[in-house]
């Protein structure tokens, strides 16, 4: 995945993920009240993620400028990617077919390993499918424990 970010700079997903567990979050757009509610919880989670070697990336079909404004209003401090041309929405099987006005992404949360393997997937759609922050913490914990040989401190 190679897309412009909220500032218009091209970013590759592999570089954004780097060496850390990462939440890859597809969302419909700023207009969706379910997304706004979920973002409020992610913004709470970012204060834990910022000190725990975990990353977050949010993807939508909004133009970069719209994402930048939405992101600033949320006080989100992670990277947003703009797929305004819908380059990946069909390839990933994430087209929201019930919205023929925006042709947005289906709401989907993927928790990725550093080598871009999906550890957990949560489909939001209309109901209760989005992950709770407790579930995301658990996913980050499991991945980090597997990733870091110093999860347990070395003996004195």
């Amino acid at each position, binding site marked *: 995945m190679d897309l412009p970010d909220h*500032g*218009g700079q091209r970013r590759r997903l592999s570089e954004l993920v780097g060496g850390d567990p990462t939440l890859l979050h597809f969302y419909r757009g700023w207009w969706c009240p379910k997304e706004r509610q979920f973002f409020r919880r992610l913004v709470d989670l970012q204060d834990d993620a*910022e000190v*725990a070697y975990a990353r977050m990336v949010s993807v939508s079909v909004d133009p970069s400028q719209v994402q930048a404004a939405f992101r600033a209003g949320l006080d989100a401090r*992670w990277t947003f990617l703009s797929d305004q041309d819908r380059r990946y929405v069909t390839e990933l099987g994430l087209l929201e077919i019930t919205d023929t006005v925006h042709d947005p992404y289906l709401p989907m949360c993927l928790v990725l390993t550093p080598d871009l393997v999906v550890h957990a997937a949560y489909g939001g759609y209309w109901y209760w499918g989005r992950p709770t922050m407790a579930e995301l913490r658990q996913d980050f914990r499991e991945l980090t424990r597997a990733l870091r040989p110093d999860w347990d401190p070395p003996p004195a």
Partner: protein
Amino acid sequence: MNPLWLALLQSDVGTGAAATAAVRGLDDRPAGVLCLWHGSDRPHEAALQADPRIHDSQGPECVVSLALAASGSEPIADDPAIVEARRAVLRDGRPCAVSLLSADPVSVAGALTVAHADRADQVAALRDDPFARLFTARLLHVAGGALGTLVRPTGPSLERYAGRPWPYDRF
């Protein structure tokens, strides 16, 4: 990736630098030579570690904001003011490269923010450098061949990796 060290010196002291670039003030007066080294050992008493990805041997002429703490009063990297400056960098999404500068794994000696000289949006962003609120900062022209890679963090992580200067992001 090998640690990167850099120093703004009065002249090239010939210590095996990986790159050197002439530096001028915004008034066009000579302001020294930026020297960059790779390696584990500190190559010069004035050298500070930076994110190694910031070195770009093919890089263009740049304008930088070089913000340096007064010697002996370097804050720890986890000082709330330093944390908040890093948050500001993530929050505003500035189109510049940035690296903390450090002489040890605990404290912060300053920060370097790098704009391409031909990118007016990047150069304008230097005038609101969050680290310039904490340290003494200078805006300087740096000749090509030293800097320029757009090193940007993903967010929201602010942690340093094995003591390397943020935003270096690998153990």
